[in-house]
Each structure stands twice: as C-alpha cells, then as structure tokens.
C-alpha cells in the first residue's frame, strides 16, 4: 500500500488538532465547544426537565437531541443524525437515576469540514459531563475513510470525505481507569473499550477493510479519550 499524501501534510493516522472548551454558554445547564481542525460544533444541554415525551418510557430518563445545521432547514440527513446521536447518548447515560425526565441536547454546527457526526458526538459528550448528567462512561467518536485501494486515513477533511470511496463513523467507549484490577473490568475476556457503541458506514467496502477500520479507529480512540479526560480534568481544577 503506497503512502498517500494528504492535502494538509498529515500522516494517515494523524488526527487534526483538537480543542475542547466547556461551560461557554450561561443559560444552558451544560455546554461545550469541540473543534477538530476546521470542524467546529457547539453542544448545549438543558435538563433534566420534568416529564417525558409521548411514546417514551416514563420509567427511564428520556434523551432528546436537536440538530441545528449551519444554515437552512433540517432534512432527512439531520433527522438521521438526531436519531443516531440520541441512541448513542442514551447508551452512555444512566437512565434509571432520573426517571420521567427529559434531557435536551442542542447541537449547533458552527463549521463543517469533515467528520461532522463524530465531532458532534464528542461535543455532546463533553457537554453532558459539564451539565453533570450521570453517565456510565464517556464515548469518543472517530471517522475513518477508505480509498479504492483499501488505503485508510483517519479524521478526514470535507474534501477527503468527498474523494474517498467509503467511510465509517465509529463511536467507542473511552478507556476506563478504575480502582478495580484489570481482570475485573474485562467483559468476556476483553476490555470494555474493545466493544463498539455506534457504527455508521457509507459506500461499499470489503468486510476485511471494515474490520481494519475498527482496529485503527480503536487505536486512535485511546488518544482521543486521553485528550478528553485531560481537558475535562484541567477545566474541573480551574472551575474550583
């Protein structure tokens, strides 16, 4: 597999510079801005508010995601993103703590330069922490792009997304650091972060290529979750 030169001079596995700041909106219960290169998303959390919407289980907390595109009205793509985000965030929040409540997450796209959905998941996750919503673990999302030759790059820009044959958005649980011994935190002989929360793919690829994406995405997710943890910690200290 020949090396492919990326426009911005990154190597295939290199992510764009990350930036995360929390507590940037006054009125929201929690908020965060997540930047990945030129892609920027703002997430605001409101709630938990009393009551659940119709057709939702009142015995559990309800999560609602509202997607605000950079411009224009929302269409099918935005509806799909809302649904994916909702189900992803539901799986990382502890829904039994605040039954019969609704937590709204408003996702505002500031600028889209590729890997928009993963960026939004990361932003929402940081905003949930900022709002103090009880969570089982954090989640980190990453985008993998595949070229015709099977060559794989991480965290693509918009231009790269358009030129590649297929791509996969993957969401992993972040690696946990707990007081338990390492064996105790294993799920069926594998660490939890080897599981996958969400997978969305576009374009045709070989099954082996997809598995390759999983492997590389998982490796990169470790770096991402280190960054997320570090940035959450540093801001916690500055808050107090």
């Amino acid at each position: 597999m020949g090396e492919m030169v990326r426009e911005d001079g990154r190597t295939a596995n290199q992510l764009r510079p990350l930036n995360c700041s929390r507590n940037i909106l006054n009125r929201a219960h929690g908020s965060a801005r997540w930047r990945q290169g030129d892609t920027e998303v703002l997430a605001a959390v409101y709630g938990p508010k009393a009551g659940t919407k119709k057709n939702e289980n009142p015995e559990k907390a309800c999560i609602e995601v509202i997607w605000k595109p950079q411009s224009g009205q929302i269409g099918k793509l935005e509806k799909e993103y809302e649904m994916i985000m909702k189900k992803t965030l539901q799986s990382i929040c502890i829904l039994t703590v605040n039954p019969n409540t609704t937590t709204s997450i408003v996702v505002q796209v500031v600028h889209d330069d590729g890997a928009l959905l993963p960026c939004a998941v990361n932003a929402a996750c940081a905003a949930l922490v900022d709002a103090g919503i009880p969570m089982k673990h954090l989640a980190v999302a990453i985008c993998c792009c595949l070229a015709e030759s099977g060559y794989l790059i991480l965290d693509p820009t918009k231009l790269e997304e358009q030129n590649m044959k297929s791509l996969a958005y993957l969401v992993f649980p972040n690696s946990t650091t707990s007081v338990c011994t390492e064996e105790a935190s294993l799920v069926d002989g594998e660490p939890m972060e080897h599981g996958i929360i969400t997978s969305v793919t576009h374009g045709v690829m070989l099954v082996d290529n997809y598995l390759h994406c999983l492997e590389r995405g998982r490796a990169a997710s470790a770096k991402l979750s280190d960054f997320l943890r570090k940035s959450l910690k540093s801001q916690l200290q500055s808050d107090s």
Partner: protein
Amino acid sequence: MFCGKEDKLETMELPNDSGDLGSEMEVDAFRRLFPLRFYERHLAESIRPDARPLSRARDTTVALGAVASANGSALAKIGSTTMLAAIKMEVMTPSVELPDEGCIAIEFHMPPICSPLVRPGRPAEVAPVVSKQLSDTILSSGMINLKELSLVSGKAAWMAYLDIYCLDADGALFDAALLSAVAAFSHLQIPVVSLNDDGKIVMLSEEQDDGNLDKGAVNKEKRKIALSSIPFSLTCVLHKNYILADPTAEEESIMETVVTVVLDSSNQLVSLYKPGGPVLARTSVLQDCVALTRQRIKELQNILDEAISGMEVD
C-alpha cells in the same frame, strides 16, 4: 404458529397450573409485566416465543406487480411486516454536470394504518431515517447504473420515483423495505416513449407503435434495467451474548441494541449500521452478524429469483 407458545407453557413454571386457559392467561400477563424476563427464559433455551431458533429469519415472500398504476412494483413480506414498493417513471432535464444520467428519488412512508404508534398528521420519527438509509444503500451499492436512465443527452432523462409504503409494521422495517425496493426495480419496465415536436417526451400508446417508431423514438421497446450487485440486508438484535436475527417489533422494543448489515451479491459490505444501544458490540459479534447476513442473502436471492421466474411464466 402457536404451537411454540404452547410448548413453552410447561417451562414457564408458573404457580398456577389449573387448567389450560388459566395458565395461558398467566403467561400472557407474565409477558406483559416482565417482558425482559419472559424473553430471557426463552433465550436460555435457545428458542424465541414464536418458536424460531435465534438465528432464523421469519417466512419471507415477494410478489411482483402488485400495483397496475406504477411502472414497477412489488409487495414484500417478512413475517407480518409488509412493504409495498412502487416506481413511477417521469421525465426531467438532467443537470449540467451529469447530462447523461437519470435520477432516483426514494421515499419511505409510514401511513397510520401500519402501526398503533403512528397517528395521522404526526409522521413517525423513524420514517425519514429509514428513507435516508434506503437511499444511501441503494445509491451507494451501484445496483443501478444511472446512465441507463438517460433518454436524450443533456435534454431528457428518467426520474424514477420509488415510494415504499409500510402496510404492517412488525420489526425489521429496513430489511423488508430494501427487499421490496430491490424487487420493484427488478419488475420495472421502462415505457416506450418518443420525442415530440415540442421537445417533450411522450408515451407511445400501443396502437400508435408501428407508424411512429422511427420518427424520434427514444426508447423503442419496453425494457428492463440491468441490476448489478444487488444489496440485501439482515437486522439483528443484540442482548447479552445472544444474537437474534430478524427481530419482531416486540423484540426490538425490549432489547434495544440493533445491528443492520447490508451486503451485496459479491459479499461486499454496503453498510454496517449500529445506532447506539446498551450492548457494546465486540468485533467477534459483528463478524457473527456478517456471517448470518451472508446466509440470509442467499435465501433472499432465491426468493427474489423465484418471484421473477414466476412472473415470466405468466
């Protein structure tokens, strides 16, 4: 169909075993009050309440040509989930960038007849999501060569409106919708048309055929479009270490983690869709889902082939 339920009555070990009717009522109540425990008791015995083994999909049928007012149509049933897909061909002016390509517009509808959860005036939340998934899958699979839908380069091309209606919603909506869509395309006949003096494309009725054919005929005979690498899908529900293929609506609502795998006829991955859910999918689980899908697409291909050959005999 009900025998499975009856078989399980003994294993439910309910306190009341006086009379058949009495215990049947108890099972029903148990199912409603503790749905998860009800299912787990079944899963431990490697069976489902409808008597299916975990990896078996429900009975599947395809009928082509269900709607006479469309250019191509099909009715697909997976268990009681029923989908009606129909294609209507209209003419458009192709875009400047792609003068030799037609277009496909895909819409998925959930009318209020299909489920007690859908009310008129309040469209179902999942409908636009399934719609988007279907167009992504069909367009990215390369099943249809859009160049085949061209009529006059730069002037006119076909716009294929594919509308899929869910008539009965009982789980695995995407699988049934994709199957009906693929079947509708295999039934599609492109009508005979010609270019008239105003530069418009008009349909040639059968009486006019002989005389007018040479004069500006664009599409001389009814033809089918070639379908390459047809995509088929299988939805599975994950619960603990169990993988349940082709879930019913009840199974989807109780065990929330859903994985949909779409493979084409050369076993390439068109989509692997897992929107969240409480169960984390390990690589080996995803590989199992892909393996189940590989088996399933062989069944689906056979069902589709039979439906097509059945049409040709008529």
